[in-house]
């Protein structure tokens, strides 16, 4: 993971043929729109199956991707050569720009409604304290993801679109991305513990 810093010593990324970078993959937008409409319909109809589907599928993917990226992909990425890292980043990051906010929105919106529907938010519920704990974990992750990780992700993509990307900037932002992805990955372990407790109370 710390090897990301090695990029600092390198000159600007080599002027080899680089993939065209689309910061937001436009082809994915209809899918995002469909997911958002589905979640709104599930909340509006207070539809148990749809709320459970959105929460379980969204949460499962969010947790798994966070753990995989933070603990597996991130350290590998830090040890790749600079051209390999640049090419991987150019193809990987745009997908994350659309995927992660959609999964987070799907999971949290459906989860909150589900908890309310099932009475788990009532102060008398044995799950109330666990849910408040999950709010806190998600809150910390949200601040890290929205305040640090996502801006770094998007800034890397803009830097890589330049004719001559600055290796120092990319290294600095990628280091930020890799560390914060690791932290949110570890925090997902707490989410797994809390959610399995809630499901078995």
């Amino acid at each position, binding site marked *: 993971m710390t090897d990301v810093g090695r990029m600092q010593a390198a000159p600007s990324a080599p002027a080899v043929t680089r993939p065209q970078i689309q910061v937001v993959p436009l082809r994915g937008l209809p899918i995002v729109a469909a997911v958002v409409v589905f979640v709104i319909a599930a909340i509006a109809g207070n539809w148990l199956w749809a709320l459970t589907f959105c929460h379980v599928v969204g949460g499962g993917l969010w947790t798994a991707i966070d753990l995989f990226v933070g603990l597996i992909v991130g350290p590998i990425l830090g040890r790749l050569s600079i051209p390999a890292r640049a090419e991987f980043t150019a193809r990987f990051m745009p997908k994350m720009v659309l995927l992660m906010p959609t999964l987070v929105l799907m999971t949290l919106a459906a989860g909150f409604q589900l908890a309310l529907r099932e009475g788990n938010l009532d102060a008398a519920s044995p799950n109330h304290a666990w849910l408040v704990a999950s709010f806190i974990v998600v809150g910390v992750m949200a601040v890290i993801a929205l305040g640090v990780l996502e*801006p770094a992700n998007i800034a890397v993509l803009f*830097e890589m679109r330049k004719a001559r990307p600055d290796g120092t900037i990319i290294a600095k932002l990628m280091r930020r991305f890799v560390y914060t992805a690791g932290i949110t990955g570890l925090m997902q372990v707490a989410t797994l513990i809390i959610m399995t407790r809630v499901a078995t109370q």
Partner: protein
Amino acid sequence: MSGELAAATGAPAAARRFPPVAELGIGSLALVVIGGILMASYVPRRPPLGVPLLLAAVSAALLLAGVFLLSRLDQFAWPRFFVVFRWALLAYAISAGMIGFAFIRDHTRGAPLALVTVMLVIFALDVPLIIAFTVARYSSPPHSAD
């Protein structure tokens, strides 16, 4: 270090110093998230509003401080800032709208709804501000050699 860009502008983009706009935005975001958690933890009861109101006020002050510092920047990639800000604002306005919809759907009304709305507006401004600032600070201002 950064090749032609650094040589052409005299100051590498990574080395330029900026006021703590992103840090203020993150602080503001953290406060509305805490306020949101406090309010959500009381649902479906009516939450006490004192602490969330205070958090929202401090959060708004931090956001305004960030905007003020940002507005004083001369050498800044404003076109890029506004492009990113506009699209991020659209995305996070949709997110905030969905959260607001969930509160309305669950019969949150009156002062708590007003406070949640204020917090969501701050949230929907904070995130685009942080993203756009982070992108623009590493971009060269117009009329530079980048």
